[in-house]
């Protein structure tokens, strides 16, 4: 059985006739080509499929596609600015060396974005708690925590001054 869903995807109004059994993850990847949304487990354990829905991070693999009707969804593709430049969080992940294989990174960045939206200057402990639903096997998480701290500092200043804030590790 199919159902029509209308929603906002990365700022654009879209619609789709979707099989009611499909997950949001499947719809985003297959019907909208949002391959930045990754599947690491498919059952809500790893966070690789994280997307932001109406200001909350959600594991899109255990969120039915039809539930998105009338809502706003942001994927990693919607974090990059319109002109292709990077969001300060993305830039901070690069500068802090937080990217290795990269498979967990879209989910990590979306969770970080959500964290910083409601807690602009989190402690390392708060970052560790808030991002604990996103798993990474490559990094040991340290540089991801560094990246979120760096992003917090950069988001705290005017856009033109951000690039001048270098990566230094604080613990």
């Amino acid at each position: 059985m199919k159902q029509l869903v209308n929603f906002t995807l990365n700022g654009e109004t879209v619609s789709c006739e979707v099989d009611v059994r499909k997950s949001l993850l499947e719809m985003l990847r297959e019907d909208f080509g949002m391959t930045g949304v990754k599947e690491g487990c498919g059952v809500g354990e790893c966070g690789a499929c994280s997307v932001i829905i109406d200001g909350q991070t959600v594991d899109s693999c255990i969120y039915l596609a039809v539930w998105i009707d009338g809502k706003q969804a942001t994927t990693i593709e919607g974090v990059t600015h319109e002109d292709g430049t990077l969001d300060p969080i993305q830039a901070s992940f690069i500068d802090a060396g937080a990217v290795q294989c990269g498979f967990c990174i879209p989910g990590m960045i979306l969770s970080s974005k959500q964290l910083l939206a409601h807690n602009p200057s989190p402690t390392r402990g708060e970052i560790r708690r808030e991002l604990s639903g996103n798993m990474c096997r490559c990094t040991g998480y340290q540089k991801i925590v560094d990246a979120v701290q760096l992003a917090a500092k950069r988001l705290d200043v005017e856009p033109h001054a951000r690039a001048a804030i270098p990566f230094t590790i604080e613990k």
Partner: protein
Amino acid sequence: MDKKKIIGQAEQRWDAIAKVKGQASYTGDFPIRNLLHAKILRATIAHGYVKHYDITEAEKMPGVVKVVLPEDIPATPYATAGHPWNLTPEKRDIEDRNMLTRHVRVYGDDIAAIIAKTEFQAQKALAKIKVDYDVYPVYLTPEAAMAPDAKQIHEGHDNVLGRSKVGYGDVEQGFNEADFIVKRHLSTPVQQHLHLENQIAVAYQSDDQRWFCLSSTQIPHICRRIIAQANGLPWSQVRVKKPFIGGGFGNKQDVIIEPLTVALSRLMGGKPVQLALTREESIAYTRTRHAIDFDFKIGVMKDGRMTAIDCDVVSNQGGYASHGHAVGGKGGTFINALYRADNLRFTAKTVYTNIGTAGAMRGYGMPQLVYALECAIDDVATQIGMDPIQFRQLNHQPDGYYNQFGKTKQRDFRIEDCLVKGREAFNWDQKLAQAQQKTTSTKKYGVGMAAFAFGTAVWPFGLEVAGAHLIALPDGTFKLHIGATEIGQGADTALSQMAADTLGVSFEAIIRDSMTDTDTDPFDTGAYASRQSYVGGYAVKAAAEKMKQKLIERAATTYDIRPEFLDIVANQVVYATDGDLVVTVKDLVMASYYDLATAKALETHASVNIHNNSYASGCSLAEVEVDVATGQVTLLSLMNVHDSGKIINPLLASGQVEGAMAMSAAYGLNEGLVYSAEGRPLNNNMLDYKLPTMMDLPDLDKVFVETVDPLGPYGNKALGETPTCSPAPAIRNAVKNAIGVEIGKIPLTPEVVYQAYHQAQATVEGGIADV
């Protein structure tokens, strides 16, 4: 004119932008028209034989294109291990498996497959296949599989699939001389790689009528060969491409799903077929780190000098040989790399059982060996009442030791520096004293450490070849083709830094590719053994030196200057003495494309065969809190100290170290795949298999004792795997320091620690707790 150093700089990894944008395409991200989907039917017993399949209902399920039984595809036995092919038949990996099988040797064995229009339809149809089994006894441990009446898991082959013995001197004599003898039985769990991207492959017949496979593999060239062997195809008729890959850690150094994916596409007349494993399949039915049991016996004098080391190893292979005895036997040549003792004996065997097949995993047998060795060594130090760092300082091999097993002089072997540096940087003495003071009746504190030695790449035990190819592009940049495989570790970035450094151009002037292609990239055996920046480094250096020479020759001819006067610095050909500009690399290369009279493409190739090895070393220091009321161990701090020669990229290097430390800390504390008595995996998901989350780990400290290795292509030696060796035993030794109990197994779960502590409290003698 000063050359800008590129080696040693924290250059940004070239692929990071694509990855933070979600733009990086992994195997499952490519749009492929008319893609069919396959799923594997998994055995629901661990040992037996499929007598009969009933596929009538499955065939009628919506979307099903074909139900595939073992008889439908080639049945040539093949080996999956990602080792280079061996021209000597006796030295080849054991060819003991088929793509699909009626002989069930592990729970989840691949007994049939379904091809359907969608993955969901294939999955639904699987449940409709009915299977009748003959059920055989299940052997979970080497002990059970070695029992005299045990059935052969592979008919005609003893369940002990490999044995080895190395040593020197006379251990019995050594024990006779010793003041003390310490015996320890130590065991390690089944660890799984848990790369975030599951195994996935797509295969089809390409327009040249050959067989194309897109796969998440660490070893594209080996993958091509194994696909061809399993399918009975000439090797040239297979082409493998590897795009971005979401981690491998050795699991993708086994060619697990690709041969079957190609076989299924061949059954479909070459239509594209995708086979993607689920997380549950990837954890339970691919490869694991071997569970190995060690019996150590060490003789020591009162002054701390060791007289003899005896180590007996039993490695649990699981149902198929995969990397086989290469893993369990490896440790034998590394005890002597680290420690002196006049008498050494190392005996090992690897045994088929019916648990999941073990293969390569980061460190390749060394995390197991180092765990066991470093527990035993530490217990010896405790026995004679010596500081554990001092004990290791007294007994480690000196710089320049000639390792007779590795046929290598351990040049620039800096373990002493690591131990000295570790003591100081970790504040060992202070933390040790504080641990005793902080201890209360319920919370105990302790510190512990462990050391290791590790080779770089596999010489002299195996083939070490690599290739590189450079093409000068019209704007003065260079396309670098390498067979070495980027799997997230950053090899591509390190190798690009090397090319830039040798050429005299900026890092940005080197262009890499996310795709490794067996048709166009030079031969390299792939990502394993901490070999790529070492062996691959020589190839890149050779290709870059040739390119530099070509550029200088061209400039010398064009500008009529003797070549020996010229150098390339910062993208310019200059006079070596004073840096005066002759021509920019850009203008020089542009002319090589379009100058009517002299245009001639600038390309260089290099292939190297490396016959040397540089030994890396290091140590870990850990501080723990143990809650004896619950058995919970909290890791308060962990430091790794590394002797890895020149650090090519400090940001990437520390990232590698942190990830590996986390993997080893979790090996010591939480991780382990467990099986029911019937051999069924019980925790093959990310909730019950305790992969550490961000909250489970402290900040990880690391120190590099940086030198320039005299052999490494850029002064570098192994780093990718070395940090997985010593954290787990350092944590175990810290727990011992905290609670006074020498626990003989990992992971140190609350249950294990609680029982060990309370059992020791109840026993007067104490001693090692075997729980």
